[in-house]
């Protein structure tokens, strides 16, 4: 999995999932149609027209597969609608210095790479993009590297199992379903008794 792309920049810290997709859009029973609602309250005016100066409304951002954001991206609610909306918009990776735990899990399950950068490289990329907004970054998942022309090659961490799942297309639910015997053995010796059907 290699991604080469320009970068949309959203320099806020602590972007929470209520911003990524506001709660009123969670009444849906489907996963589809969320791309247009991504960052809705930052993206549209009260009359529903797009705010021309908001980054995700620019043609350049629309063509980008990578989003660069401030620290602690994806905090707050556990809604998986957040990575659904981000990927439906066309994003394949988010770059930050850290991600909230649940968001990170949800992203990996939806082929959205949460890339944790060291602080200095993160700051350097902001500077590089300010100089050249058309700069392209390259993300190499097998090598776990992120690089850009004139910049460092940054190694990023990723859970080894999640990486294998992404690269080999492993279905995690299928993987656990196959461990039926181990689950049954565990169930047979459990001591906690609860029966919600009682």
């Amino acid at each position, binding site marked *: 999995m290699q991604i080469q792309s320009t970068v949309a920049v959203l320099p806020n810290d602590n972007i929470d999932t209520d911003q990524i997709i506001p*709660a009123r859009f969670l*009444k849906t*029973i489907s996963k589809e149609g969320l791309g247009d609602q991504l960052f809705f309250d930052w993206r549209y005016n009260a009359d529903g027209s797009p705010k021309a100066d908001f980054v995700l409304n620019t043609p350049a951002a629309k063509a980008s597969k990578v989003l660069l954001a401030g620290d602690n991206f994806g905090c707050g609610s556990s809604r998986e609608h957040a990575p659904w909306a981000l990927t439906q918009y066309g994003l394949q990776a988010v770059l930050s210095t850290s991600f*909230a735990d649940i968001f990170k899990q949800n992203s990996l399950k939806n082929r959205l790479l949460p890339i944790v950068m060291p602080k200095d490289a993160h700051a350097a990329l902001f500077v590089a993009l300010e100089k050249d907004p058309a700069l392209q970054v390259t993300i190499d998942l097998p090598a776990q590297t992120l690089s850009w022309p004139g910049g460092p090659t940054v190694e990023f961490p990723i859970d080894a199992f999640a990486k294998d799942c992404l690269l080999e297309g492993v279905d995690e*639910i299928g993987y*656990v379903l196959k461990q039926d015997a181990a689950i049954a053995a565990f169930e047979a010796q459990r001591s*906690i008794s609860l029966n919600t059907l009682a």
Partner: protein
Amino acid sequence: MPSNKPRTIIEKVWDNHIVAQREGAPAVLFIDLHLVHEVTSPQAFSGLRERGVKVRRPDLTFATVDHSTPTTPRNLPIVDQVAATQVAQLEKNATEFGIPYFGFQNLNQGIVHVIGPEQGLTQPGMTVVCGDSHTATHGAFGALAFGIGTSEVEMVLATQCLLQRPSKTFEVKVEGTLKPGVSAKDIILALCAKIGIGGGTGCVFEFTGSAIRSLSMEERMTVCNMSIEAGARAGLIAPDEKTYEYIKGRKFAPKGEEWDKAVAFWKTLPTDEGATYDHTVTIDADALEPMITFGTNPGMGMAISGAVPDPASQSDPLERESLRKALQYMNLQAGQPIAGQKIDVVFIGSCTNSRMTDLRAAASVLKGRKVSPSVRVMVVPGSQEIKRQAEAEGLDQVFRDAGAEWREAGCSMCIAMNGDQLSPGQYSVSTSNRNFEGRQGKGGRTFLASPLTAAASAVTGVVTDVRSL
């Protein structure tokens, strides 16, 4: 796996639930209780249908509706058709997959994190999950309880297991005695302010210390509830006599011989002497003041006697910019005292503060007083059971006499999915857990605080320190 090394309660509960652990892979972790609500589950059930898979353990699963349901009288229909469809979908899924379900009209319906403990579903030593980040609430009972995404909901429905790696352990030690006017909510808001909204990322909190021990179970739930607001996926408190007493006799609690066996097991759970944590932070309960947030995340909080901080005093440029944007959104000036800020709405409710203790606290302030004519005050009990109990105690009358609205149970203005919401620009003092932009309605501005602070502010129409009333 278990060894003789002293362990924290977090590690004990973890070890007890490992089904399989392959080298290099995350553990397959067994889940004892899976709570389900209407917002984060429909796509998971669709996934099961596509796979042709059943729910493995309907007897460890429990569903209810709370987020998108109105808090108007229950004889009225759900007007919002999209919400009505979502509620109907959960009902259909529960019936089709054989899952026990408290529907909209059920007399025990309520916020999922309120009814779990109330029904005795939540017990010490359990792993508890729900497609909801405030699942941490159940940690008050010594359960390892955390929020999951919808893909994980599907996995737990299908397998009763999750793929997980262990979190780091983080002790939050709260020693001392809370002063009058200071409550459990202030402890957790103080933690958020101290370590920041990302401070506990990758960790599970264990709350320890004399101030935590002296909290009631309801207050402990308030503390654990907001663990996620300090970045931790879960937060728990070791069980003790108060825990057992709370659980005993509840609908799904163990009975008879099972009860004795359960208590004997629960007593093995507290952290061993000599066990160590990856991180520790200490909070001095004696020094705590009533807390309130001023910004757009729960970490932006301070003592109610304080003044709004100045972005210019922040050294990190991104942090300076975040604070500047937050104050701009909140329309607050650096240096202004937070007390005295005019408000439009008071919301008393949510899985953080909608239990009897909270309603009694709010009523103690509102009794014999009137809410300010310029303020709308909504009191929303966490469950229909709490609603009945509060009515039996006459609290509803106290609220009504004061000029507050007394509503049906649900999440309500905590998340503003059901029509209960702020208008753009309005300010609320809210006992809920999130003050993100638009959380309580597009353009709305939220000050998070305790039920005492909320009630005091309802009376004056401005942010008010309850001790000054």
